[in-house]
């Protein structure tokens, strides 16, 4: 039921929104979150590695959790992998519901769990110097633990 994609290509937010809402009249709220690659500290690019056999399974479970916890009419997770440059979108989550609190909370939940429960690893390539693996942040664990 949830839509989960792992891909190198960019995603089309408007098309994904339309998929969730078109020809339906029971949706009052559609929340979205797009994560983008920032150019912090002279970043030239970011390479997203993942565990292909596991990734869609993990994302589907996260999306199913959201659909169990909130009365969603639909939800979508699209996560890009490969080499991304600053300004490029990395991840999209969408949650649709009759009411706004469910859509907004589910969207925050999806991102918090995705940050801590999906097998992706980011390697940053600075404009100068050696690439470095991004370290997990304690605040992401704290954000995920609130749900």
């Amino acid at each position, binding site marked *: 039921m949830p839509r989960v994609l792992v891909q190198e290509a960019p995603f089309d937010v408007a098309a994904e929104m339309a998929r969730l809402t078109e020809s339906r009249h029971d949706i009052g709220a559609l929340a979205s979150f797009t*994560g983008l690659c920032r150019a912090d500290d002279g970043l030239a690019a970011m390479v*997203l*590695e*993942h*565990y292909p*056999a*596991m990734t869609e*399974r*993990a994302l589907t479970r996260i999306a199913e959790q959201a659909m169990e916890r909130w009365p969603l009419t639909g939800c979508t997770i699209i*996560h890009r992998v490969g080499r991304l440059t600053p300004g490029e979108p*990395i*991840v999209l989550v969408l949650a649709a519901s009759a009411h706004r609190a469910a859509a907004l909370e589910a969207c925050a939940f999806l*991102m918090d769990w*995705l*940050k*801590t*429960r*999906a*097998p*992706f*690893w*980011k*390697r940053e390539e600075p404009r100068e110097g050696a690439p470095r*693996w*991004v*370290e*997990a942040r304690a605040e*992401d664990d704290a954000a995920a633990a609130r749900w």
Partner: protein
Amino acid sequence: MKILYFAWLREKLGVAEEEITPPAGVVTVRDLIAHMAARSPAHAEAFAAGKGVRCAVNLDFATPDDPVKPGDEVAFFPPVTGG
């Protein structure tokens, strides 16, 4: 048993995948980590306690107490950083 490595573990060990046959006493993730750490100095360093290595068994995240058995696919990796 198929062992996979991701991110800095893969880089540090210089290999993405190993096929191993652990001794019969290896029945949990904790046992397997102790076994893996004894394979080489690089393994010992990668699996040292402070490194925070995480594990998935047959495509599900696993804790040290979770069981492992012959034929499993076991992945080791740092804490995830997607999103």
